[in-house]
């Protein structure tokens, strides 16, 4: 859980960096996107690893949830979970499930589109199409709203998950407080950044 989580956190940082260029410089964004989309190593080694990482993470998450549920056969009549642990830490399965659902939409929006463009329709390479395609995606309000809400839950998920993964891996030394602080900042900043990108493109459509 922790290892796949950390891996996904790293990926998230990369994903964010690339996406953020779409706000600053459409050219750079196109270049980077094209590289990611057509580089053999990225496409045929890193992409499957990433997908495997996502699958491992959520399958394990569901398995753990089932196991943990079974560990208490008879439930409490009264249980004050909120008295001793924050909501986010107790409800990773909820934030996780929402993010998973969001990933479905996100894959449909970009990955399925890419696959179809490259391999099914076998269109020729066009290193300049990405920026426009991205901005266009955020034109409908409903999609932007779903993205933003999902980023909120991602933030909650990271708030607990990122720091927690260090605990699970047994990291505990004089740097721990700094590490925890960093994870909290990360958990807020990255999803906020993603949300900013989505909102930015929604309000700054390309005028044809």
């Amino acid at each position, binding site marked *: 859980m922790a290892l796949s989580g950390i891996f996904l956190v790293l990926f998230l940082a990369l994903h964010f960096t690339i996406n953020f260029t779409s706000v600053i410089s459409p050219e750079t964004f196109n270049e980077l996107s094209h590289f990611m989309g057509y580089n053999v190593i990225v496409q045929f080694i890193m992409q499957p690893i990433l997908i495997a990482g996502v699958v491992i993470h959520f399958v394990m998450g569901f398995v753990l949830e089932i*196991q943990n549920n079974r560990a*208490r056969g008879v439930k409490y009549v009264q249980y004050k979970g909120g*008295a001793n*642990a924050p909501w986010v*830490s107790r409800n990773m399965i909820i934030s996780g499930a929402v993010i998973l659902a969001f990933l479905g939409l996100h894959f449909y929006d970009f990955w399925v589109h890419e696959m179809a463009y490259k391999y099914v329709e076998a269109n020729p390479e066009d290193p300049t199409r990405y920026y426009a395609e991205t901005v266009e995606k955020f034109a409908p309000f409903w999609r932007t709203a779903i993205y933003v809400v999902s980023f909120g839950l991602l933030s909650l998920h990271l708030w607990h998950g990122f720091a927690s993964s260090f*605990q699970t891996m*047994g990291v*505990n030394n004089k740097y721990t407080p700094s590490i925890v602080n960093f994870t909290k900042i990360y958990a807020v900043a990255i999803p906020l950044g993603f949300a900013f990108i989505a909102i930015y493109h929604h309000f700054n459509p390309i005028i044809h």
Partner: protein
Amino acid sequence: MKIYLKIWRQKDATSKGKMVDYTLDGIEGDMSFLEMLDILNEELISKGEEPVEFDHDCREGICGTCSLQINGRPHGPDTRITACQLHMRSFKDGDTITIEPFRAKAFPVVKDLIIDRSAFDRIQQAGGYISVNTSGNTVDANAIPIEKEKADLSFNAATCIGCGACVAACKNASAMLFTSAKVSQFALLPQGRVEAADRVMNMVRQMDLEGFGNCTNTGACEVECPKGISLENIARMNREYLSASVRG
């Protein structure tokens, strides 16, 4: 003061239990929570009913026997105490108090509020010791100086009273805090290093076999632990476990 009780009653391990309501009058703030239950039981006996059975022994917060989930929290609303140290001054006139046993698949109910925590014993038996004979023919106690800081950390981990509040509080009924406290106590001492790798592997294996849930680091255990055992112990155990696994 007058209080309303909702108490879990269950005849034996195989019966189905249910919550039963009772009302008590004349309760004073200086009474301990368990003394309040004593009064209830005296009333029940005088009416010819069977008293509510609950585990308790030292009544000073050290034996770890009492195991009551009070108003949805192990050992009740106060922190850093066991149920026997809880006093009725924590409640108000007219309060309703729900009392249940600690619940986990690994802690089956024996009767009423009494549970079977022998799973904890079995985890300890799997490796919660240093394999030294009790002949007394060891080295002098002062032959190996131990850094005070480490000795204190080891002591802090060793203060676990094995009550099971960590399991009761955890949404996953995980026994990681309990197990890691023992692993930590020995891992921090030079005497315990020799068997550290085997110890952590064996104890964790037994813990999983007993049917406890997994740790998702919610931290509820640390908050509810009457002895304030730190989550750092879980991190230490994870570290010990990882390094033992890697080394095989």
